[in-house]
């Protein structure tokens, strides 16, 4: 056992000495590996950032998986909003669902300094922001306190904010709804600018606020729909149960529709990033292959040069296994260190603000270091090291000692 341990330590000491003595050669050859690993890790890392950005973009519109939309109709007339709300609340309570939102639409005329304009109203609950990764550009999203405001809290779109003169929210700017009764609402947030919204004005408010300003006719015309965020594994089962329970509670003639509206469901189980992953994987594999090829090349050439040295070592009693191990270790230790350096470089590339801004602007769950990329980088470095070490090591053990010494 002691002999084995001494042998193991000896092999490591030997490999380390080799690395130290041939540092210039090793450094030059390992720069290629470090660059290859940095490239593969960066490509995978930037790819996963892009994937996350795409995912979050999808989740903003369709909601996070699995998002169930619940709506109800009647073939005999209209659905009573209160009955629908009660039936939905019972179901939410029964299945212990944490995130729900009641969504609806409406419209109002708003008095601006330069005239009155029709604006769209979107109503949604506090949880909506979590379920759709909604972020405001200014101010804050709705909170529990906003439920109790006398003047409703509203979040307006960027276009409307600009028309109002972009007033600072700390000055508590208001918006005036005109109609049967004039209502003043306090602007508490501004949505980020969006494409193709020029001249379109939109106001978001809590459903409770909308109920206070809407006429009974408006409420009857626009039956709200409901959303809930549930674990994807339970989505299918819950869909059926909710249809049954809510329809049962609303009584005969009520048609209840429950369906998944998140992007995953719309893609029918296919990986939406498959093609992106394939392209990234292909580029990364090519980069790594070239790095490995240059390392194998350099390793083979250097073993040819070191044949005399290997012969001398064999004359001292180095077994073929030991020579094999030492050459392999030299390659492995070197490439693992190079791989680590490559991963560190990739980390700085992937977390660089310029890269993040250009690839994943607005990503909410930005991974500090894409672990997947780091793992792939290190595995790649180790595999390249093993491959680059194997061929020279096989050459090294086949050396004829005296011939090698006189080489």
């Amino acid at each position, binding site marked *: 056992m002691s002999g084995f341990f001494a*042998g193991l330590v000896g092999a490591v000491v030997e490999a380390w000495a080799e690395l130290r003595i041939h540092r210039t050669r090793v450094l030059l050859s390992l720069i290629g590996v470090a660059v290859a690993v940095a490239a593969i890790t960066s490509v995978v890392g930037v790819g996963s950032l892009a994937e996350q950005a795409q995912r979050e973009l999808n989740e903003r519109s369709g909601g996070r998986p699995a998002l169930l939309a619940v709506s109800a109709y009647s073939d005999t007339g209209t659905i009573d909003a209160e009955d629908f709300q009660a039936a939905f609340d019972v179901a939410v309570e029964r299945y212990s669902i944490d995130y729900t939102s009641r969504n609806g639409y409406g419209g109002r005329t708003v008095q601006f300094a330069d005239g009155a304009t029709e604006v769209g109203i979107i109503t949604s609950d506090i949880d909506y922001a979590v379920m759709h990764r909604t972020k405001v550009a200014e101010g804050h999203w709705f909170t529990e306190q906003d439920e109790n405001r006398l003047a409703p809290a509203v979040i307006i779109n960027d276009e409307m904010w600009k028309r109002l003169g972009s007033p600072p929210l700390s000055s508590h700017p208001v918006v005036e709804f005109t109609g049967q009764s004039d209502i003043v609402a306090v602007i508490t947030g501004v949505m980020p600018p969006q494409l193709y919204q020029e001249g379109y004005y939109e106001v978001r408010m809590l459903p409770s606020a909308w109920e206070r300003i809407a006429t009974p006719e408006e409420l009857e015309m626009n039956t709200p729909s409901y959303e809930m965020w549930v674990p994807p594994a339970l989505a299918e089962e819950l869909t059926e149960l909710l249809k049954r329970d809510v329809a049962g509670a609303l009584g005969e003639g009520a048609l209840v529709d429950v369906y998944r509206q998140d992007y995953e469901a719309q893609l029918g189980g296919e990986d939406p990033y498959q093609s992106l992953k394939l392209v990234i994987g292909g580029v990364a594999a090519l980069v790594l292959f070239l790095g490995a090829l240059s390392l194998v090349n350099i390793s083979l050439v250097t073993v040819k040069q070191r044949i005399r040295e290997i012969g001398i*070592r064999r004359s001292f009693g180095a077994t073929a296994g030991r020579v094999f191990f030492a050459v392999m270790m030299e390659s492995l230790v070197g490439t693992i260190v190079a791989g680590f350096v490559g991963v560190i470089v990739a980390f700085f590339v992937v977390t660089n603000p310029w890269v993040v801004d250009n690839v994943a602007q607005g990503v909410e769950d930005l991974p500090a270091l894409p672990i997947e990329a780091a793992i792939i980088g290190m595995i790649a470095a180790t595999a390249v090291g093993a491959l680059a070490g194997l061929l020279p090591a096989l050459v090294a053990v086949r050396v004829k000692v005296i011939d090698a010494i006189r080489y």
Partner: protein
Amino acid sequence: MTLLRLEQVTRSVQLPDASPLEILKGVDLEVNVGDHVSIVGRSGSGKSTLLNLLGLLDNPTSGEIFFDDEPVRHLRSGKRDRKRGSDIGFIFQQFNLLPGRTALENVVTPLLYAPGAQFWRRTSLAKEMLDRVGLSARMDSMPDKLSGGEQQRVAIARALVRRPRLILADEPTGALDIETGESVMALLDEVAEQSGAALITITHDANVAALARRHYRLDSGVLSPVDVTKVLELAAPEVTL
């Protein structure tokens, strides 16, 4: 006590499109513990092939080699390598110090393959050995900063650091001037005698060969004992490697 014994050893190689070439023919040799044997021979007489066989680096075509009265032909490769490491020390004509390593690191190298205490005490053992060959002041010098004589002393320290029982010296003074060669041989002889190791010197230098107690001549693959006076007579220019 017999350390190494060769019995009717032959070695031949198969040349393409030709009959086998017999390099060694029926070689008999017995080397005892503490013995000092010299072998002289012309170039192409089979000295390298004999060195390979004595150093357990090759197997004979026929005949048998015994080390400690045990036949070595059937030893497995790893065991044979370990035996070579522990019992045989090599000294080469061109010193063959490992480049880029100090004198001390060169002497430490064989101890990297030693088991147990020798491995763990490798630095102190190497320092002791360099001290014995008079190089304690040059331990941190690189080979290219050492003179030929100093390099060969490092090579001697390296060959002896594992306390081998057999030292194989292949033209140990071949790359040195006469004076340095003599002092190196005197040192080698002294250190080998102190450690009780057997020394086999393969050389073309009759004066070096004459330092041995027993003398052999290898001629066309045939090894035969010669008298020391005969050896000195052979100190003619034609006896070269």
